[in-house]
């Protein structure tokens, strides 16, 4: 059998599989909905400061003033309001007392509160520090931290302004330099302000495409065996390799379609920008598929029916999803998990894809990842083919 007929047969099989796929309406809808859900869920739920708005915050002002003058607390609150008008982070309501405030937080009516003590104006005017108390819901550390962060930011700006005002009489050329001698500027490698979506989009893409081949292949093959149609191909003078190759092409096609959908969603809905070459992005996806095919074939060979294949894939997929650095940075994991993640091809695919998409990297910058993926793919296929051959003759 010539290479040409092997390829011809595999293209026919791939074409047949894809025709079946496109005729399956529900399956097609799920193909689009699945990555969409994943993006939305992970992207919106993951806490990041920029995305939280509308926190309910109670304000208690017990300031008794100084000589009947409550300017200090009022200007503080106005300042707070002014900043909040830009960020919409807080929704403020007035509350009568600290006890009431705590009660409301406990009941969950509000998520936190600010209390200005009775001696606030007096302290400031008499040259002491003015204290402000932040009440927060400690049962929800995420929100609590956000409120603290937001308020602390506001306080910093305001105390800075106050300090500048106070040191002005010193005749400094730049009062700010006296109050805050250091200023920090952070600068990324690329322009713009990458969001969490920029972080997860490449990972989710790599994951979906690679997984769809790794899970799709065993399921597609065991399904045909179960239904009986596999016999129709096996009884024709067709090389077993053609069947495998055809199925792989079809599953890769399916995975790439999903990849494109995710990319379109990421760009269109979530505002992700691709800094590097889009061609390189697709080349990386294909390479990812290549590195996973062998694993898929091995699983195919060891599972008798569709159900087992699916279960086994889920079991393999789950740790990979979390250890492959798709959702959480690998640097954030305990050392032993970091070690495991070094053996997962997904880690390298998502890292390379992220470098290209977010940082605009080219081939030289991702050469390590490329080498690992290629070696992994070749080794797995070398293991898989003999195993597959043995399974097919039985």
């Amino acid at each position, binding site marked *: 059998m010539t290479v040409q007929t092997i390829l011809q047969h595999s293209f026919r099989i791939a074409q047949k599989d894809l025709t079946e796929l496109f005729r399956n309406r529900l399956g097609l809808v799920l193909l689009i909905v699945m990555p969409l859900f994943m993006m939305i869920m992970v992207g919106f739920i993951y806490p990041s400061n920029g995305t939280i708005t509308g926190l309910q915050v109670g304000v208690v002002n017990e300031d008794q003033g100084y000589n009947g003058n409550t300017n200090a607390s009022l200007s503080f609150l106005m300042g707070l309001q002014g900043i909040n008008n830009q960020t919409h982070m807080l929704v403020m309501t007035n509350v009568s007392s600290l006890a009431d405030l705590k009660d409301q937080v406990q009941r969950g009516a509000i998520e936190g509160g600010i209390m200005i003590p009775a001696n606030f104006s007096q302290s400031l005017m008499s040259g002491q520090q003015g204290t402000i108390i932040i009440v927060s819901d400690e049962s929800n550390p995420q929100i609590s931290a956000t409120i603290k962060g937001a308020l602390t930011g506001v306080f910093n700006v305001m105390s800075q302004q106050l300090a500048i005002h106070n040191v002005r009489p010193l005749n400094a050329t730049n009062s700010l330099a006296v109050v805050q001698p250091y200023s920090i500027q952070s600068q990324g490698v690329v322009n713009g302000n990458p969001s969490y979506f920029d972080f997860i989009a490449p990972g989710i893409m790599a994951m979906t495409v690679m997984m769809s081949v790794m899970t799709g292949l065993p399921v597609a093959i065991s399904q045909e065996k179960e239904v009986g*149609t596999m*016999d129709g191909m096996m*009884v024709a*003078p067709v090389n077993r390799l053609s069947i495998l190759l055809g199925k792989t092409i079809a599953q890769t096609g399916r995975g790439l379609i999903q990849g494109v959908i995710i990319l379109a969603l990421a760009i269109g809905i979530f505002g992700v920008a691709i800094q590097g070459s889009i061609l390189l992005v697709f080349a990386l996806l294909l390479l990812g598929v290549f590195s996973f095919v062998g694993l898929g074939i091995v699983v195919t060979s060891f599972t008798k029916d569709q159900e087992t294949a699916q279960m086994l894939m889920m079991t393999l997929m789950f740790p990979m999803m979390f250890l492959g650095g798709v959702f959480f940075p690998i640097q954030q994991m305990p050392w032993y998990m970091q070690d495991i993640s070094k053996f997962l091809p997904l880690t390298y695919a998502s890292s390379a894809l992220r470098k290209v998409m977010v940082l605009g990297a080219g081939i030289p910058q991702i050469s390590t990842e490329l080498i690992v993926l290629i070696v992994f793919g070749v080794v797995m296929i070398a293991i898989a083919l003999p195993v597959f051959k043995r399974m097919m003759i039985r």
Partner: protein
Amino acid sequence: MANESIIQVDHLTKMFKKFTAVDDISFDVKKGEIFGLLGPNGAGKSTTLRMLSTLSRPTKGTATIGGFDTVKNDTEVRKLIGIVSEKMIIYNRLTAKENLSFFGSLFNIPKDTLNKRIDDLLELVQLTKFKDAQVGTFSTGMRQRMNVVRALLNMPQVLFLDEPTLGLDPQSSVEIREFVRKLNQEQGTTVIITTHMMLDADLLCDRIAIIDHGKIIALDTSTNLKKIISGGDTMIIKLEIANLTPTMVATVKALSCADAVTQENSTTLHVIVHGEEAFDSIIDSIRKTNGKITSMANLQPSLEDVFLHITGHEVRDSADQKIKQEHGPGKRFGAAPSRVR
């Protein structure tokens, strides 16, 4: 060349782990013959067919088709054969035409030739009208017709049919049977058909191999097989007993002259007996248990009787259940009590 054999099976054996599904069988099939493999569920019919059609590798023994070894020359064998297996080899989401052109393309048939052949085949089974409809929308009978012509795309010299009428209504069964007969007569296609339906075997097959527990226990023409009964001192008696009780059945079964006893309904017994004293001892035993015999007939043997006579158990026992339970990789339902696994 009428007696030239196209299939040679030599000590073919298939074991699944320690269980022997096909046990050292040997036979030849002649060119142009319709050859039947008859046996109950789990007898090893499908396994035999799968080995012959290169889908399963024999544990021991060899088989050749058209002179090619099914293991060493599997590609050559595949060019010569077509198979209609227990499960339909049809993609429901593809149209009739797409199905046929997919499978045809796997045989490297030139496109024009293939298209012409597909049209002819669809015409042959009256599916031309439906050629662009998805097969999933077809009735079971239509799908089986599709399934059969699918096996003919490469114009095989040998056609394997594994229970092709299973689950079909009598009308569709007749259609398939007639189609196979026509194919055999007009194209000279050699046909190997497995079935547990006596009628299929009786009406269609030139020769029948009765297979049970993985062994061939008889192989001959239908007429000759029946002679095993009618030629010897064996008889088939049908008894109508108005007040038939289980005790009576047991008594008859216990008789040394009774080879097989089946109760057909609440008043009818079907008994295969041998020996000159048979009539007398049966009547005696029924009388002793106060049975009233209302009629008694000496029947012509059917294949079923032959099977009963040889194996001591009924084909139908298991066959009936099979349809209810649907078919899958053959668990043996209602198997003979003597069976050891």
